[in-house]
């Protein structure tokens, strides 16, 4: 067991190291950021001075070694543009991203699950197919369009909700819906097939034979048993939501990591971009690591090398 753990841990470290190296070199491929950081009026001497103060005049190998050393000490650097520690910038945005992801998951769950259930139970009726059409339509609307539409209707015309920004629960509603619509259809589909699967099983048939009512059958047996695949898909959806958040956060001026990514890329603040990418990689890799370990706990074949 411990050998397997160490193996997996080693692989995760190699993956993180790979991401770090890739990020470092890709950002250098896009050119020298000093040109982008100085105003037009800067002379060559100013450019050289700034390059020195950022350490970009050093040979690439030296920069790379310094970078790895900094990463080892968990020093993620200071933003070129803002002169603030990257960890501080990212930590100030992370709570907003978590709130939005949570809100979006909730929306996707609360709408997607009943739709999937309805489609499974009343699958013989044409109307339920229509329901799926509506759900897919909502998912297919580009966020920069549906988001603005919501802002116009609920923020400007009806004035029910603040058109953008953050600070209260009412600010969170529209961005969560805009982002949640993206995952809703996935949940509906997964829920539908998973419930159909369960419905064909013997225990359901015997329950029916015992005379259990449909309401009780669905509430007590079906939903609970078909939730497992729905929950495991959530892990995948979270990374989807984080990616989709870039546009939603920009449209709704929601100060999360997605907006920060766009701003940092536009401002060529490479140190911040690097920090965000590393955080993303770290989250993805650790989630996978945990999943791997959990699988191996559940299924002994995996920890014995997968030759079942």
């Amino acid at each position, binding site marked *: 067991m411990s050998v397997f753990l160490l193996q997996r841990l080693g692989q995760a470290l190699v993956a993180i190291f790979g991401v770090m190296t890739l990020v470092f070199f890709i950002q250098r491929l896009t*050119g020298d950021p000093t*040109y982008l950081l100085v105003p037009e009026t800067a002379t060559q001497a100013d450019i050289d*001075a700034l390059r020195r103060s950022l350490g970009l005049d050093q040979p690439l190998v030296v920069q790379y070694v310094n970078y790895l050393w900094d990463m080892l000490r968990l020093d993620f650097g200071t933003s070129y543009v803002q002169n603030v520690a990257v960890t501080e910038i990212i930590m100030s945005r992370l709570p907003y991203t978590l709130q939005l992801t949570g809100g979006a998951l909730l929306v996707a769950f609360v709408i997607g699950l009943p739709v999937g259930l309805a489609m499974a139970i009343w699958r013989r009726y044409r109307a339920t197919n229509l329901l799926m059409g509506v759900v897919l339509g909502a998912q297919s609307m580009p966020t920069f369009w549906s988001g*603005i539409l919501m802002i116009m209707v609920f923020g400007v015309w009806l004035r029910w909700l*603040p058109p953008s*920004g953050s600070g209260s629960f009412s600010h969170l509603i529209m961005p969560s819906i805009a982002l949640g619509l993206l995952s809703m259809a996935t949940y509906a589909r997964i829920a539908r097939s998973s419930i159909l699967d369960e419905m064909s099983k013997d225990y359901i048939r015997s329950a029916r034979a015992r005379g259990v009512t449909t309401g009780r059958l669905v509430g007590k047996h079906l939903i609970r048993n078909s939730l497992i695949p729905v929950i495991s898909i959530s892990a995948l959806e979270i990374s989807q939501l984080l990616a989709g958040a870039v546009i939603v956060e920009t449209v709704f*001026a929601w100060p999360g990591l997605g907006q920060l990514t766009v701003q940092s890329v536009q401002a060529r603040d490479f140190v911040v971009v690097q920090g965000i990418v590393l955080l993303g990689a770290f989250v993805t890799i650790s989630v996978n690591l945990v999943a791997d370990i959990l699988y191996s706990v559940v299924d002994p074949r995996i920890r014995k090398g997968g030759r079942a």
Partner: protein
Amino acid sequence: MIRAFTHGIAAAVTLLSAPALMAQDFTVNLVNEPSTLDPHQQWNPDSYYVYRNIFDNIVTRDNAGKIIPQIATDWKQVSDTEMVLTIRDDVVFHDGEPLTAEDVAFSIQRITNPEFGSPQLGQFNQIIGAEPTGEYEVTLTTKGAYPVLLAQLVKLSVVPKHVVEAVGNEAFNAAPVGSGPFTFEGWKRGVDVTLSRNENYWGDTGPFETVSFVAVPDASTRVANLSAGTADLIVSIDSDFARQLETQSGIQVLTAPTERVAFMGMNTIRAPFDDPEVRKAATMAIDREGIVQGILAGGETVVHQMATPSHYGYVADAAAIPYDPEEAKRIVAETGAGNTPMQFATSPVYDQRIVQAIQQMLTEAGFDVEISMTDMSTYLQAARAPEQSERPYLSFGRWSCACQDVDGVQFPLLHSSSSWSRVNDADLDSLLEKGRTALDDETRMEAYSNVQQIVHDNAYILPLYQAVALYGASENLEWTPTANESLFLNRMNWSE
């Protein structure tokens, strides 16, 4: 959000001399949050919109563009390279400490210190010394005679020496202390910066008690916020949004011609643009009025020199090469200039509608032009290549020196020593140098008039238009936006 307090009779009695509306909360929507609030660090609109209200500059410009006192009440050129500033004696920083000559000298030394690495260094690198020579007197030394010095000091903010030295650069940026009409209250990263009125300010503070600058990256969201009343002033809208806002009641669009000059640059070192006739043909091929009226339509005006009326050194009756596509075609055919394939270097930052329009017009005249789109860094490396001949054949740009002096536009774009220039003309160089170093107005104006003549006769560069800044605002706001794209809150008024 504006919450105008309706005063009761009691309040009205006690505040007989005060205006009817007192407490006001003003919200500005920026595109992004400020990069820094330390005024010696980042130089971009979202940053200086905010920090210019927290700090005082050494001098300032009035709404008409004239340089007037701010921290310095008087300035004397005592020799070709020395200027003596007299400092106000009644200015107090937000922490209660008085502002002295020490602080002014410290501020200049700080921003010009290469070790500090200010991105603004290029604007101040002619200054080589700043020493307090009296309690309220500072003497500045420049590399040579430098007539643009005062125009540069318009942007130099005074920071408190004792605070910066005590807390360090990073902490100062996080909680700036200035002497301006507004005091820093808080900065929620990514969300907003809030300021409150400095009741001890030596000058006007304007009508707002608290002001928040909110980051709203999407232009349609800024427009929605203004319509919904959650923003009172929004920046950076295009002419389409401006027309949409104009039709709404309670909302106004404010237009300010800026000091930004848009131009098409040609590499006059490389064939076929080494031939003045070919450059003239390229100039004649471009329908500048068409670009301004048909594409931009935000109130821009065509210019025929690398300057706007808001610049010192603007030539009032500059000669223009007229739009003449037929003549352009004739010259291109005659000289065979169309046989050389040329790249129009650009990057997504530039308005691609204009780049494409120019390419199309040049192609119609017979040139062989291909748009070469790269990321900004690659573009800048090509545009500033060490060898003049390696710089792009063609490019489109919008230039501002933020100093309202033609030296800041023409020297970098036309002098052969500049890393941007694609022109190599000894006469032009010496005129530009004369304009940069002569202290007397007449000599300078004459030099720039001659520069304009040479640039026109040789068609070295094609000036296109003077750019505008468009703002959306509540109808209650009374404000005259200026050419230097500042948001001075203490020059605004509010009426309901």
